């Protein structure tokens, strides 16, 4: 840095100090109504004394989610925005390839009225929809818990079973293989077809891919975010569809393209 640069830097720091002084004056004028913002104290993974959450390196945990206590999250799983996994009095096990979507809550019970211990176990490739509440229950592999469903203590969702959206599964209910239960309280509605069972595992893999994109985005540092912001601004006018119409082929920078594996059938959809 030259002498001029140093001089400008010093002047800049003076002005900043002045600005902070103005800020303090403003704060004191606001008086008791002032709220001073603090650095976020939200903890994504939080241990309770000796209960540490164990999260696989390939799992996606959104920074806004809270994973507390004795929780194990397997490979390829995803815990989305605003989720709460609270394994404080008992353990939560989440298998691999499972997704727990936004604002869902998973909790455990120490003991229920009949006295048996109820950890929450979620198997592999399970899809737990938005806003679901899972309390002390067991969900086996490749099950599907729909949006806003509530699973109460001791309920058991067997393999390939499905809890429809908005259902409330009461205590100690067992949902058998390949059935759909819905309503409040949950009742048997129909059997799942083969295609739907295939769709469940398909949606789990889709979600795993989608989670990887989100994980990459959320793990970015400040520098990277700023760089991409400027890139996005630069390329905003150069819309791919418009350009192809007038016969220009432009390459978007690698940072701004999404992988195609979010949806495996995407290319096929466009073609049809």
């Amino acid at each position, binding site marked *: 840095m030259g002498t001029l640069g140093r001089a400008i830097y010093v002047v800049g720091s003076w002005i900043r100090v002045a600005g*902070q002084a103005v*800020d303090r004056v403003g704060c004191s004028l606001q008086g008791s109504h002032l709220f*001073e*913002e*603090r*650095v*976020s104290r*939200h*903890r*994504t*993974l*939080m241990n309770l004394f000796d209960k540490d959450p*164990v*999260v*696989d*390196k390939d799992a996606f*945990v*959104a*920074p*806004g989610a809270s994973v507390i206590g004795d929780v*194990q*999250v*397997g*490979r390829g799983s995803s815990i*989305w*925005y*605003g989720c709460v996994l609270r394994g404080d009095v008992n353990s939560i096990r989440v*298998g*691999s390839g499972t997704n727990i*979507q*936004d*604002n869902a809550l998973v909790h455990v019970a120490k003991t229920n009225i009949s006295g048996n211990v109820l950890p929450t176990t979620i198997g592999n490739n399970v899809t737990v*929809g*938005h*806003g679901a509440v899972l309390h002390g229950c067991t969900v086996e592999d490749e099950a599907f818990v729909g*949006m*806003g469903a509530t699973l109460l203590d001791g309920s058991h969702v067997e393999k390939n079973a499905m809890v429809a*959206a*908005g259902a409330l599964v009461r205590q100690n209910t067992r949902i058998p293989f390949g059935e759909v239960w819905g*309503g*409040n309280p949950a009742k048997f509605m129909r059997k799942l077809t083969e295609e739907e069972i295939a769709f469940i595992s398909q949606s789990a893999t889709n979600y795993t891919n*989608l989670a990887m*994109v*989100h994980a990459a*985005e*959320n*793990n970015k540092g400040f520098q990277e975010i700023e760089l*991409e*912001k400027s890139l*996005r601004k630069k*390329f905003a006018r150069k819309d791919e569809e418009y350009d192809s119409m007038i016969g220009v082929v432009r390459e*978007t920078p690698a940072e*701004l*393209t*999404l992988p195609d594996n*979010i*949806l495996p059938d*995407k290319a096929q*959809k466009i073609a049809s």
Partner: protein
Amino acid sequence: MASLARLSRKTLATAITSHRHLLRRALATEAVAKVTESPPPALPITESPDRVKWDYRGQRMIIPLGQWLPKIAVDAYVAPNVVLAGQVNVLDGSSVWNGAVLRGDLNKITVGFCSNVQEKCVVHAAWSSPTGLPAETMIERFVTVGAYCLLRSCTIEPECIIGQHSILMEGSLVETHSILEAGSVLAPGRRIPSGELWAGNPARFVRKLTHEETLEIPKLAVAVNDLSKEYFNEYLPYSTVYLEVEKMMKSHGISI
């Protein structure tokens, strides 16, 4: 009572131990069967040392995905702990309240003029919808979406009210001037005709709305909008947290 239960359990235990060999023989076939269908060993969990347990930035409000950058109009109020990801458009005068998640990673999400998405809502868009409608989530103008709602690829036409805790699944359509009661569930591909009140799980027709009630709907949206203005004024355009981060970095000896 408890002591009696304990006593009976103890006697049961002794009874079982005395006949254990008999019991075991009876259960032997079952045990063999169990062993053969043991579940495959769970994948070992490998923790990574560089997973962040505490991000000093907290959750970012705007999460761009690739080229998709969520857009917020200048006079829309979005609470600081809302998550907007991907193709989300929050248009003028609308408000998104605390704890909501709007995740447009597969399709577009639009929150229209003067409509509001209240606390802890999740708005998501599926890749495709079962009906002919586009699979984007469209919330048009003067719509009130209550707290804890879950919307997925649905279309809500102007001037509707969606009650609290209601769930709208893929490809459902709520036409103009209709009200969905609290806690209702709209199955995939359902349509609510205009000027009707629906409720229940699954949602059913209750009654037609009177003219006065349909006039009330935009008034409610405007009232929420007025409230959001107050919130909007409370938040300054730039937070001063960076000062605290600088201070923290200085105290840890990290050069800026």
